């Protein structure tokens, strides 16, 4: 009776364990160092806050897009469009932008000048 349920549960578990939340990575020292080249006042805590805001405000409306699915330079335009809907203040938008830009750059490499 429950064979199909067991198979589905196993697939769900394998998928969960294989991903481990890496699609929206937690900020590391490498992220902070990269961010400071553009925003010198960036800290690990501010990048964590940017990630936290991104997960909390954006996932309510649509599945989250991992940062690396967009080119680093594209995140600013996307946030201009989405920030009002996510009810992000200007300072919150800035924190989310820093996180998404740096996380994308770290995985994809810096945007071409």
């Amino acid at each position, binding site marked *: *009776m429950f064979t*199909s*349920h067991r198979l*589905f*549960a196993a*697939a*769900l578990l394998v*998928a*969960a*364990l*294989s*991903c*481990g*939340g890496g*699609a*929206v990575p937690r900020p590391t020292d490498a992220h902070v160092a990269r961010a400071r080249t553009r925003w010198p006042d960036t800290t690990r805590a501010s990048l964590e806050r940017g*990630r936290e805001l991104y*997960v*909390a*405000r954006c*996932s*309510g*409306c*649509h*599945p*989250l897009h*991992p940062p690396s699915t967009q080119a680093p330079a594209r995140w600013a335009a996307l946030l201009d469009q989405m920030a*009002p*809907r*996510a*009810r992000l203040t200007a300072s919150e938008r800035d924190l989310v932008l820093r996180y998404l830009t740096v996380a994308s750059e770290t995985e994809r490499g810096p945007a071409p000048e």
Partner: protein
Amino acid sequence: MSAVRPLAAALAVAFASLLPGAADANERHFTYTYESAVLPAGAKEIEAWTTPRIGKEDYFVRFDERLEFEVGLTDQLMTAFYLNWTAVTADVAPDTRESVTEFSGVSSEWKLKLMDPVADAVGLGLYGELSGGTEDYEAEAKLIIDKQVGDLLLAGNLVLANEWELEPAETETEQEVEIDLSAAYFIRPGFSAGVELRNHNEILEGEWEHSALFFGPVFGYATDGWWAAVTILPQLPALKKEGDGSRVLDDHEKLEARILFSFHL
């Protein structure tokens, strides 16, 4: 019966015209299986549900209609209020077909998101719903698990419900256990296609009455300002039932479908 859907649509439009604002959404990609996402704090949404239930031993067509107003209380907690109607056309005797439309009650829903299906190892949510009408009332709890891996979305619910039916002589109590499992693939941003599996078990007076099984396709579409999802679920041979036939046709139908249409306020 035909009066129900226009009434629901008219009420939805009335709500929308009263409450204009920024566009927010809480896209659903399945119609029976819930996902862990909740509306962001302050966001509001109207959802109109239509659930056609078609075919028993004799002619039977039923529409369950719900109109839902959702609001995000915090970024992790949302609540919703529903108005529910039912319309049934059925053969009640040889050569006698009757139609009944009735307001079947109201519901209050609460959903708490604990983990995110993309950012965390697995998405996790808790859901509670209370429904009350003139003939019965029900309490329902759901454990929601979901996970998105690339363009593949997986979700599962364990649902426990207790229903009290108000009979003239006594109140009858029954329990329901349901397992919903779903998978969908994002063919392109905003458009998903997949399958839903629904296993509904009923326990009456401590006896396991039946275990009905449904399986079919689901499609979801989301764009700026609104989203919709539709599932078509034929009933498969039951895992457990009493009496003749392979399907459970006293409490269920040969075919169920569900259409959700939602827009942002």
